[in-house]
């Protein structure tokens, strides 16, 4: 059964069709949400909120081929909404290593991951959203811009800023891995 047919069935209220549609995307949605929100529980909330909205509004989706992009957009917007709501309580969680590569420079790879993780911590959710959409959800920048309702130039600028800030953090980081900071405080 192709995606158009699945979307059609889900639009008519078929739960199984909706589950089949969502399944392949769920891991990436969760990954993007965790990258943006830096909190596994909040990420779950955001994904759930996005799925609720997707199910609720699916009958209005005009182009079935855009289902995945639409779902990405709902998820990122749910993340940004949550990020705004929690505002003054940035919570940092330690992420468990997943599928660690079995290579000879295993330690260096782990250090790289820590550095990137630490660098992401220093970005605000809006910039992390651009990174997540572009690199984890494979969305082209114009699509990122459209999803966030910002000009393409602004999306490019945000990505550039994010990468530049991450590069700076990564290359300036000392050898020791950063210590996770529980419960930051906005001045």
């Amino acid at each position, binding site marked *: 059964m192709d995606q158009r047919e699945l979307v059609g069935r889900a639009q008519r209220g078929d739960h199984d069709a*909706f589950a089949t549609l969502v399944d392949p995307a769920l891991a990436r949605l969760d990954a993007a949400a965790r990258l943006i929100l830096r909190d596994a529980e909040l990420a779950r909330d955001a994904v759930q909120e996005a799925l609720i909205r997707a199910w609720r509004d699916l009958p209005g989706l005009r182009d079935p081929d855009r289902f995945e992009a639409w779902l990405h957009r709902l998820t990122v917007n749910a993340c940004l909404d949550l990020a705004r709501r929690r505002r003054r309580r940035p919570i940092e969680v330690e992420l468990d290593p997943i599928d660690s590569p079995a290579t000879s420079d295993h330690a260096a790879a782990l250090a790289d991951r820590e550095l990137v993780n630490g660098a992401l911590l220093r970005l605000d959710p809006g910039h992390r959203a651009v990174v997540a959409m572009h690199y984890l959800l494979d969305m082209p920048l114009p699509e990122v811009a459209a999803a966030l309702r910002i000009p393409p130039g602004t999306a490019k600028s945000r990505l550039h800023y994010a990468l530049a800030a991450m590069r700076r953090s990564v290359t300036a980081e000392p050898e020791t891995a950063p210590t996770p900071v529980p419960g930051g405080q906005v001045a």
Partner: protein
Amino acid sequence: MTVTNARFDRELPALLEDLYLGPTPSYRDEVLAVATHRRQRPAWAIPGRWLPMADITSRTAFAPRVPWRTVGVALVIVAVLIAAIALYAGTRPTKLPPPFGPARNGLLTYTAGGDVYVEDAASGTVTRLTNTPHVLDAEPVFAPNGTRLAYRRPVEDSVPFAEDIVVVKPDGSDPVVVNQAPIVGGPKRLEWSADSTSILATEQNDAAVWMFDASGKIPTRTILTGGFAYVRPFRPPNGGALLIGRAAHDKHSIISFDLATGRETILAADLPGDGSGAARWSPDGSEVVYDATPIDDPDSLRLFVVRSDGTGTPRKLVTAPGIGVDGDPTWSPDGSQIAFMRYQQQMDLSWVVRPIGIYTMADGTVRSVGPLPRDVRNRNPGPDDKAASYGEGFAFEWSPDGHSLIAYPSEASGHAILIDALDGTWHALDPVMDPKGFPYAQGWQRLGE
């Protein structure tokens, strides 16, 4: 250090996947059950996605008989009144009190390599104000009276990342940190108050807007929560209101916030998106220009002007054929023109950048001025040019005298240019400066009239 810049760029996607991508989350069944337990909206209940406008507008409307004669007479009277008011307004002097309206051009300020500089645009004389090898100073902005400038300075080795706001004189002397405690995440966008005594900043997640005393002696105040301030938010002619935005559920509103009473006047409501776009007061404070996605053209971004007293409906300024983006509108100091950035979507769905456009308020004409950023990079190479995309746009602002625009690189370090707003001629400034990712506040010193 285990990651070099080149390796970082190459390996980032894989590192991100390695860090974040896992198997299907264990909550899969639960969230799907929660989601599908909800009732679906019928398709007809989702306007904008489903109902074709043509069907709506062609549907027969049942209405009482219209008294056309009375309406006609009323319209004639209104037209005569409007003409009289326009004639009266046209003959009145439009001189604005400082710090609004045109002024003489002073120094330019920018950062290069993370240090703050000022430059005399006429002579090309450059003065370095800060020298901080371990932190990247950012976003220098001049006070409206030109006597001081403020910038952001990261707190060295801060975890989580935090910044201070530093105020100095234009020669770099008398530095003062105006915040009482480091600002976690750093402030977003610095804006001086109209009387040059305070600095306004928005929290990074738009949770709050703070007012810092520029001398650092008075404790920081939270002006509002759950919103953000737009660029140059103080309403002319007295700075008594702020232009703010509030966002929720993928929509945002543009609001006039009275600083004395806290009263909010909604100028534009339910605009799509999180409010990352631009909105600015006209120099006399009577109108606001903003960019937004029209309901009938959801793939584009257009300019709108609305009255700042909250009355009337927004009017769309520029409509170019095809899917386009008209964004980052900026009034000229005398209010007669609006400069804006443009992108256009091509048949192959790629986006291309256009030269800066200038809209003339009097006749509604639009002209292009200056080059494209990539043309500037081709003619004035810099070390970071390859980091900028082919479709890079400018961050720009008007000179205080309104005769020219300064356009900054927005994606990578490069040369800024000065564009003659009248004939579109331009020349590059010598310094290679840091990119300005967003349209900027007061980067050009005002020197009075």
